[in-house]
Structure formats: C-alpha cells, structure tokens
C-alpha cells in the first residue's frame, strides 16, 4: 500500500516542469515539492498550511544533508539511507518541524554517529 502511494505521488510530481507551481493537490492534502538536480523532495501537508514555509523547510533540510555528508549527492543518500532517516528524525517529528537551527542539528548528528 505504501508502494502504491509512492507510485501515485511519483506520477503526479514528475510530470510537472519548471513552469508549474511547486504545489499540487493530492487526495485531500497538498504536496509541496522541490527539485534538486535529479531528486524531488516532497512533503505532504494539509490544505490550510503555509506552502511557502514548507518550501523553506525542505530547503533547510537539504542544506543540513549537504553539510552532514559534505556535498551530498544521490549516491550518498542511497548508501546511507539509515543516516538520512536519523537526520529526518532530528528535524521533524510527529509530523511537525522540530529543530530548525542547522548548527544544533549537525552537532547532534555527529554525537550520534560517534556512538555507533
């Protein structure tokens, strides 16, 4: 079922080119997405949430990833998927934004990796 969802979202988002806005309606939610090179980062939010703020959140997240992996590229994300999940957990939790300061997040992450 998750797989079906992924396919649906994929079909919706990949057909949109640069001329379209970064928001698309999906079931009774909204998807805010941003494209970075070959990857689309999508966030699914309620209809009355602030679109622009979540665009910023996506960007924040990508910047943290960049710092963490030192110039991240797609392969980094694939091979270290569990680390990506830990970054997600640091910044978002229970569907809300948790921490926005990049410095703090990075500090936590380095401590976590040192524990392994």
């Amino acid at each position, binding site marked *: 079922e998750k797989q079906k969802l992924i396919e649906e979202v994929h079909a919706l988002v990949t057909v949109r080119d640069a001329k379209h806005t970064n928001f*698309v309606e999906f079931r009774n939610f909204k998807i805010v997405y941003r494209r970075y090179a070959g990857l689309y980062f999508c966030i699914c939010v309620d209809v009355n949430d*602030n679109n622009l703020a979540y665009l910023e959140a996506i960007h924040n997240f990508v910047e943290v990833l960049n710092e963490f992996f030192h110039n991240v590229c797609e392969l980094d994300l694939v091979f270290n998927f569990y680390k990506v999940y830990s970054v997600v957990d640091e910044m978002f939790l229970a569907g809300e*934004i948790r921490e926005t300061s990049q410095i703090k997040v990075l500090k936590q992450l380095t401590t976590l990796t040192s524990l392994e």
Partner: protein
Amino acid sequence: MKFPDLSSLSNPVRLRDLIRQIRSAKTAAEERAVVQKECAYIRDSFRDEDNTWRCRNVAKLLYVSLLGYPAHFGQLECLKLIASPRFTDKRIGYLGAMLLLDERQDIHVMITNSLKNDLNHSNQYITGLALCALGAICSPEMSRDLGDEVERLMKSSNVYLKKKAVLCAVRIIRKVPEQFDIFQNTIRSLLSEKNHGVLLTATALVTEVCQQNTQALHVFRKLVPNLVRILKNLIMSGYSPEHDVSGISDPFLQVHLLRLLRVLGRNDTEASDTMNDILAQVATNTENSKNVGNAILYETVLTIMDIKSESGLRVLAVNILGRFLLNTDKNIRYVALNTLLRVVHADQNAVQRHRATIVECLKDADVSIKRRAMELCFALINSNNIRTMISEMLEFLAICETEFKADCTSNMFLAMDRFAPSRRWHVDQMIKVLTTAGNSVRDDIVSSLISIISLTPELHGYAAHQLYKTIENDITQQPLVQVASWTLGEFGDIFVSGQYKKPENEDNFQISEEKVIRTLEHILNWSISTVITREYAINALMKLSTRFPNYTNRIQSVMAHYGCNMNLELQTRAVEYASLFTAHNDIRANIVERMPILINNQTNNGEQAEPVDGSMEQPSLIETSDDVPGTEANIFDILNDPIQTNGNLFDLDGDNHNTIPAMIALDKNGLSLTFTFERQDTTLTITSTATNSTPYNITNFVFKAAVPKTFHIELYPANSTTIPANKAGELRQEMKVSNPNREKLRMRIKLSYVLNTNSMSEEMELNAFPEQCYK
C-alpha cells in the same frame, strides 16, 4: 557428494555491497533475483537466532523494503534488536519499527515494554530514539500507557529530550484527545522557554491542542499577550546566527507563532485587538525579496483574514497580496490568487484594485494559476466592469483548455445575467460565447438563452438575424445550432419581413424564406447533428409551416419523409406533425402559434438580492426551469400542465401596498381560503392563507390556479402541504399575477386535499376580486 556451499557460512554480505549489487543489476528480473536470494539468506539467518549479524541483516532488509519488496518477516527481528543493549542495534531496531510497523499491526504492542524501559534510560540518545519511535507509530493504547512518561520528560531540563517529548505529546493528543489533561500544566510553562527549538515545538503542541479542544482555547487565549511579546522580541532582537535564514531571524518560529495567534484570535475580538499592532508591524517590516520573507508575510495575511481585525489591517493584507501577484515567482502568485479567492467575498472593493493583474494571470502557463485566476475574475465582475471583463473572458475562452470551458461558459452566463447593461448586448455576447466554446457548453445554458431571447420582444428579429448569420456557414456547434433553430422557428417571419431593428451596417440585409427553410432542412438532414439538434430543427420547420404559408407543401413533404426515419424520437414527431397537416389541419395554426414569454426564475437587472452579510457569496440565484422549448401548449390549459414553481422565494416585504382589502376565496367544509393582496403597478401578489376549522388535519393539500390569456400567473411553493386541525396553524402560498392590460381579474382555482381519509377536490371560478387589484 556435493559439499555445502562454504561461502554461505562466512560473514553475510555487507549492506554497502548488497546495495552495490542491486544497483548493478541491469534488468528488473536480475534485481529481483538478487533480492530474493538475499532475502532467503536473511530469513535463514533469522531462524538461526544469530545475534551477531542481526543488525546488519535487518539493515539490508530495510533497504530492500525501501525498494518496494515485502519485508514483514523482519518485524519480529526488529523487536529483538530493540531489546538489545547495544546502541547500534537499538537504532536499527527502532528505525525498522518505524518503517515496517504501523498502528494496525499487533506486534507493536510488544514494543511498549521496551519503549518504557528506554524512556527511562540514562543515556539521553536512547531515550531520544524511543521518543522518535513513539512519535512516529504511537497508537491509542500505547499513548495511554506511556503518556505519563512523556509528560515527565517534557519537564526535564534536557532541552534535546524536551523537544522530542513535546512533539511526541502532539502525536499522542492527536490520537487520544483526552490525554490533554495530563499535559495541561506543563504546556503553559513551556511557552516561557527561551530556547527556540522548545518554543517551536511548544507552539506546535498548543496549536494542535487548541484546534481540538475549545476549552483549552479559552485557557490559552489568556496567553496571547505573552505570545505577542515573544514575537516582538524575535523581530526586534538582533541577529541570532543559529536560527537565521537569509537574514530573517527564525522564520519558522515566526510562522508558527502567527499560526497560533490565528487559531487563538478567531472569533474573539479581544484577543484580536491585542494582536493588531504586532501584525501590522510584521507586515510592514518583513522584507519580501526572498521566499522566506514572503512565507512570513503570507502567514500574516492569513492570520489577518481569519481574526477579527480592523479594516485598515485588512486593506494592508490585500495590498500585500496584490504585491505578491506582481512577483515573478509563480509560487507566490499562486498562493496570492488562492488567498484572494477566499478574501474576495468579504472585501470586494479592496480586491477590485488588483483586477488588472488578475486578468493578466489568466494568460499564465500553469493550469492551477489559470483556474484560480478565472474563478477570481468571475467573483470580481460587477456592473461597472462587466463589458471589459466579459471581453477578457471571451479571449480567455478561446484559448483555455477544454475542461475549463464548461465552467467558464456557465459562469459567464450567470455574470451576464446579473449585470448585463442591455438585453441586446447580452444576447450578442452569449452568441459569441456559443460560437467560441463550441460543444462544451452545458445544456441548461441553451434553454436559458432561449428564454432570454423570448423575454424581449424587440430583440426577436435581431436575434434571429444574428443567429442566422452565425450558422449560415457552419453548423458544427450543437448548442449554437439549437438556439438558432429555435429562434428561426419562432421568429422567422419577423426576420424575413425585415421589420425589426437591424444591427448597424446591415440595413440592406434581406433574407428570403427559402433560405431559412433550406438552412433548417440542412441541419435536419446532416448526419453529424445530434438527435437533439435535429429535434429542434424539425420543430422549427413545423412552426414555419404557418408563418411561411408559401412553403407549406415543402414542409409537409419533409415531415412525410421523416415519418420513416430510423430514430424513434424524430419519427414520432414527424408522424404527429404530418397528421397536423392532414387530419387536423384546422388546429395547426393554434398549435404552432407564437410561444408566450417564458418566465424563468431569474433575477432581472436592477433587482439583485443584497448579500446577507459580507462574507457570504451569492450562489447562483438562477435556476432554469425545465421547460423544453418546443412544447406547444395552449396557455389557458395550465390546470393540466405542471405548475411553474420555482425555488427562489422573492420575499416581498408586504408593507408598502397593503391598501387592498382581503378577499375570502373559499369557505367550505371547514376549509377557509383567504387572499391578501399587494400590488405593484401591473403585478399583483396574492398570498393565499388556508385554515382548517375541522377537528381533523388536512393533508396533501394542492392548490392550482389559472388565469385568462391576457394575464400571466406564477405560483410559488407553499410552506407545507398540511393544514393542522382546529385552526392551529395555516398554510401560506404566494402567487404573482401580471396584468399588463389592466383588465378585470378572473381566476379559476382547483384544490385537492385529504380530509379524514377522504379525498376531496374543489374547483371554482373567482370573479369578485376587489377593484384595486387591477384598476
């Protein structure tokens, strides 16, 4: 003898290598093979209860599940990992739990115990892991069990844990709203924290709580001044490099605070007043060159719109939206259009200023922007700008996608109906719409247009003229052809005689009867016309048989020809019409004579219902009657026709003209019918009040009325069909009689009802109307 494969006893494949293997597979089948082999191996090793590599195996399993392969056999393993003391194990275990499990599984209940232990762990990172997992997959049972723990952690001094605990609480409250009581006290203290992260999470929690729980709403409203102060400090205080994004200090926190203020200020004037200043400050001081600033401004605008703010603030908000519209970034324009749509009903004037920009947006490439712009344009049409707007919309109609056309045409029609400066212009524009929109026009528009044409006698010839010109060369557009055939059928004689006000530059346009008939025949015979269009055409031809007496024979032969047509509908009509020529020739003239003016349920020009309160949009007050044009009906036979009832209750105020004495129409068998009158020039409004003095209820009460040819009557639905016994209540029904010739009013009424299980009916003629009704 075959030896067992030694390599399988060695260390299992590392995660990295597995990933590499999978990625290097060239075809989907190859990839599936690799994955299946690895899964089989993993399953074996799980069965062997091998602790050492479990972690790695589960990691591989997770990767595989990300790719989409089923991995549920790993769920139990995750539990075991969680229970292990090693950090790496726990980490992968929790990750696995979050990915593979959800609330619907039963296994997750087993995690509860491990979670409880971990929540009390001394190592904050392990506690953090536990909180993460809890936040992701918490179920109602789990939240009840572990709610206390979470609350305790919310009070801890460790900021890291505090943030996680607060968000966990958000999820818990979403699942089990009653848990709020546990958290209530702690929440308030959270809002006075200095740490941005904690504030952020706390505002999220409070927003969630307030949205669910109105009682909490009152409690937190008192905190509005605090929130305002925090926001102020945030903006004023200098530079905080940690939370800074492009020069704006912690925009996320600002947005969250604004949202919380919105939730708290809704419907509450007092709170809204406190917020006014700060909102104005944020709106003016935030720079909007980057997306970040715009995000904050957008949130501010949303808040201003939702709370009870003063009008100056609202205008400010609309101006901000106007500025958004001019922005080159299409996201921002989309967002602005969306919000303007919500605002326009309340604050039309403010939005009118930006009309030009909105019209520009119609030409944007993005579909969703176009749609929003179109809806907004329709909302903005009023009597001043109707001409320009309609011409813009016509241009838009020509280039827009098909799925818009139906909506666009319907909306244009509604708008024109409400604001059209003159009938002639109205008819002109509608013809243009029909020509442009082709076949995507909805059916009710056809009948509406027909009724409009019939409504204005002076336009009959003109309409016929214009329509004839449009279909002269091109009969592919079905709705247009339908309207044209009807018009030509009805008013063809006026058209041919040239006795009407022609459009400019065409005074010498003369049309012969032959051409009109030929066009109609062409429509009828053309195989691409739909059945409905051909029905219109055949009706029109029939009507012309009396209007163009020279061509009666030709038309008769057409009918005879179509009497053998394969289509049932056409054949029926043709046969009936043919018989009109032969057997019933004497009544042919009566049957196809000119139709009376069709009264539609419309608001005419100059009589618009005022909006009840500023925020309500006027839904379409126009409902077209389901008159199918072409039914030739003898007008006085209304008693057997369905009553033209409409759903629009024109609530005439009844005070002005009540100088006409009431009249008792009927008083028989305990049923008493009283007419009260109100008159406005040639229109008389009669309110019939029925009371019942018998001891039984009267049910299924139906009232019908008919008037002579020179009058016109319109009956509105009664307030019920039951009259309570013993005069306990009354049944009221309104009707409107128009009397353009000021003749003596006569009326024939027919009642039917059920009294004490007996069906009764009455029929009588009323002549004794007071003179003031019609003089």
